[in-house]
């Protein structure tokens, strides 16, 4: 794989990954503020 193709693929992955992660974070911010307290606490992880 030449350098130019590698850079293009890498940028594409980073951009798509960022978009997915930001969308996920935005959803969390919205839903966390409005979610059920009881369900949120009931599903808490204790290892």
């Amino acid at each position, binding site marked *: 794989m030449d350098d130019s193709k590698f850079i293009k693929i890498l940028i594409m992955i980073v951009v798509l990954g960022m978009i997915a992660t930001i969308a996920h974070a935005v959803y969390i911010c919205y839903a966390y503020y*409005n979610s059920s307290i009881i369900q949120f606490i009931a599903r808490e992880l204790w290892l």
Partner: protein
Amino acid sequence: MKKIIVIIATILIFVVANAFLYITITSRLANNFSGAGQLKMIDVSKFLPFEETSELARTGSSFRLTNDEYLPVLDGASALVPVYASVIENCYPEGSVTYEGGKFSDDNFYGENFASDSVMQYQNTVRGFDALVDGTVDLFFTAHPSKEQMSSAKQKGVELEIVPVGSEAFVFFVNKNNPVDELTTEQIRSIYRGEITNWKDVGGVSELINPMTRVKGSGSQTMMEKFMDGNMITSRKPLSVFGKAIGYSFRYYLSGMVADSNVKMLAINGIYPDVENIKNGTYPISTDFYVVYRKDNRNENIKKLVEWLLTEEGQTMIETCGYVGVAK
């Protein structure tokens, strides 16, 4: 080969980050992201009057309304659905609860399909209170209305009668695996003022405390603001989301209606919120719940119903629903 490894590693970074967020937060978010979702927090189908399988208090009543009279329309907070549905079961004529399309469904946007001529409605605290003020609901069952709700009614020139008919404990709860079983009222206030931020400071493990709040205007949020005397964090803090949470609710809503075995109620000042401790007044955070109606509502049956709720029959019904009668 090196380039392939870099590409795979980059993909893995995003996958791991999102999987971490999903496991720790997203998978725990549930159910009431909208007005419709909040209404669906309880299964109203369990509390439909005149249905054999409903979980209502069928204690009987010497006061019964007939179809020839103007029947007051009842609505209320989700935690009080069993109470006002039981009032209808005991005091109203059969056929007074009706549904759009003839049959109950909770499949529509607002979670239920009570017809506009039905005496039972379920719009929950915020929309239901507005309906009371606007005059489409006659009698509203609720925790004490918030300052904002009272002021909104006043601005519309509506005067309200607010009558206590029962009492209930305001409870704090955590995950069942949290080793903390009790807190003092002062510790709770410090947690919700952001002064205590780690569970180890109240006898627990070394984990951040995530003090969760509820939607403004909801019954439990209004009660919490009163308990904190207006001095509390204003909303959920994003950075504490990874900590171990504490929340609040009314006892029967938590233990009787939602009844999730993965959460536990905390003793406050060493007193557990059971019926006996609420009744004898030793549990420190009890509150009355109310029926609210417009002072200018001329329907005579409203006052008769309220008076009945305060009789021995009415109080027995309230206690059979799982609540505690109003202090005499």
